């Protein structure tokens, strides 16, 4: 998941220049491999657009894991029981790990982690807009697990078959952990939905606030999604935004009903002819606004990332200096 911004880069950014015959041949071969479901590996030839698309998508995913730790970090000090605290810590630790192997997968495409982090901190790179919403009560932690991670899984399961090997393999591991995250979220929500009136109020309120932003996680509607066709041809993407969004709604609505929670959409209704739920129009104006930087927490999240990075600078410099000193000492010892 976490790749909704993928669709936001205007076409002009990848202006076409004339291709020579060799390039045309290589591209045809490349597409044949893709069509035959042969994985592309780092040393294989690949079109520049494929490489750039993957760097953008994988780094957005990595950034989202890192920024996504912040709304949860907001509650880990206030988790209501030691068991919940431990589970949330484990989840946050997983997310840092996901960030690490996604940055590594990106590095196989010829871009360094430092460059990627620089892009995040400068505001040039996007991360999932969902993390620009606040966690106000403990119920939000449950809803993030249940719905945000649930939407992530919906997006990521097909990515396990992504044509780019390192990304696909990273995704297999990530998906396993995400399903544990979703379960813990659902468990929190369930406990609160069956709890006191105050707890039920918190959990319904959290659902009301998160519902539409979660549906936005799948990216803009297919009709406005510029990159979908090319990404599907390259088998980076296997399903369209709208297909995945529909699947998600179909999966989640019965769960909400079992919990006695009300989805905040008056148009939500089972459509027996389609065999799917119909649902209302996602407030896309809000989506674009938040993606462009005006969400409740955009500034706050980036500011924290920047501050942490700045405050850690002397530590990273010390580590590098020490490593260099050690190397020189070892060399001197060898020479002696």
């Amino acid at each position: 998941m976490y790749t909704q911004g993928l669709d936001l880069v205007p076409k002009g950014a990848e202006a076409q220049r004339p291709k020579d015959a060799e390039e045309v041949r290589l591209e045809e071969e490349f597409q044949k491999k893709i069509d035959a479901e042969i994985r592309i590996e780092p040393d294989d030839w690949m079109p520049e657009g494929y490489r750039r698309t993957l760097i953008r998508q994988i780094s957005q995913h990595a950034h989202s894991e890192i920024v996504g730790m912040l709304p949860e970090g907001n509650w880990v000090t206030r988790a209501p029981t030691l068991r919940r605290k431990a589970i949330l810590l484990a989840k946050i630790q997983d997310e840092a790990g996901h960030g690490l192997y996604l940055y590594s997968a990106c590095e196989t495409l010829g871009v360094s982690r430092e460059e990627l982090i620089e892009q995040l901190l400068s505001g040039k790179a996007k991360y999932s807009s969902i993390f620009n919403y606040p966690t106000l009560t403990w119920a939000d932690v449950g809803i993030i697990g249940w719905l945000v991670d649930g939407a992530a899984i919906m997006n990521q399961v097909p990515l396990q078959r992504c044509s780019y090997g390192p990304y696909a393999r990273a995704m297999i591991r990530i998906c396993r952990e995400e399903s544990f995250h979703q379960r813990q979220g659902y468990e929190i929500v369930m406990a609160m939905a069956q709890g006191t009136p105050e707890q039920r109020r918190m959990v319904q309120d959290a659902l009301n606030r998160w519902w539409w932003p979660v549906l936005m996680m799948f990216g803009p509607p297919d009709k406005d999604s510029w990159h979908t066709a090319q990404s599907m041809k390259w088998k980076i993407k296997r399903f369209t935004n709208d297909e995945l969004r529909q699947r998600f709604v179909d999966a989640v609505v019965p769960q909400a009903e079992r919990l006695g929670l009300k989805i905040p959409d008056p148009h939500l209704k089972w459509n027996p002819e389609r065999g799917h739920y119909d649902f209302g129009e996602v407030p896309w104006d809000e989506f674009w606004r938040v993606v462009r930087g005006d969400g409740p927490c955009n500034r706050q999240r980036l500011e924290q990332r920047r501050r942490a990075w700045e405050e850690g600078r002397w530590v990273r410099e010390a580590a590098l200096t020490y490593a260099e000193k050690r190397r020189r000492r070892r060399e001197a010892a060898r020479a002696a």
Partner: protein
Amino acid sequence: MDRQEVLFEYLLRLGDNALILGQRLCELVGWAPELEEEMALANIALDCIGQARLFLSYAGEVEGRGRDEDALAFRRDVLDLRNALLVEQPNGDFAHTIGRLFLISAFNEQLYAALTGSADRRLADIAQKALVETRYHVRHSGEWVIRLGDGTEESHRRMQKAIDDLWMYTGELFTTDEIDRKIAEAGIGPDPATLKPAWDRRVEAVLREATLERPQDGWMPTGGKDGRMHSEHLGHLLAEMQFLQRAYPDARW
């Protein structure tokens, strides 16, 4: 104080040290200097919370008044907390975070190693698990002390300051009071004073490699582990940690 009461107090000391250190590390989520360290700190926090759960659950059973790990973690106020002053100190900069982690972990390593031979089987089992984790905490934080001490001028200065600032809180770890004496007599745990030489060796070796100076021993405040006088910091930590349990006492989570 009868035997059960002594054991209860002792288990609170063990559990609260792990709990409060773990809580301090929780505060750092999202603030680590690099991603690898983000993972490491969360991992160590998780170990600490896990240890706290084992010690406090056992404490609750020994007490026999129906208090579980959460009742003990979330429903006791400053006067009833039994952690050492060292672990409640604020995170400060990364050098302070690492310095505190190193000094307490080097102590816990000796303590847990001794507790693996405890006459109390349950405690010995918990210590066995905690020891494995703590050895990693000592290694990890010790490596950072060395890197920062022997890194740049700035990191050296910060690391030395952190050790200097925290040093006064290490004295309490090795004091022996009535509880400690009874625990030692019953073969349940070591007399803390006996752990000092091994701790000294460990800490001195790391400080030497880090090109840092061992501070002079001066006045060493006490009052954490016996609950006589915690620092002002603890109340704020508890206010945050205990908020939900206090605000919604009837709720189950």
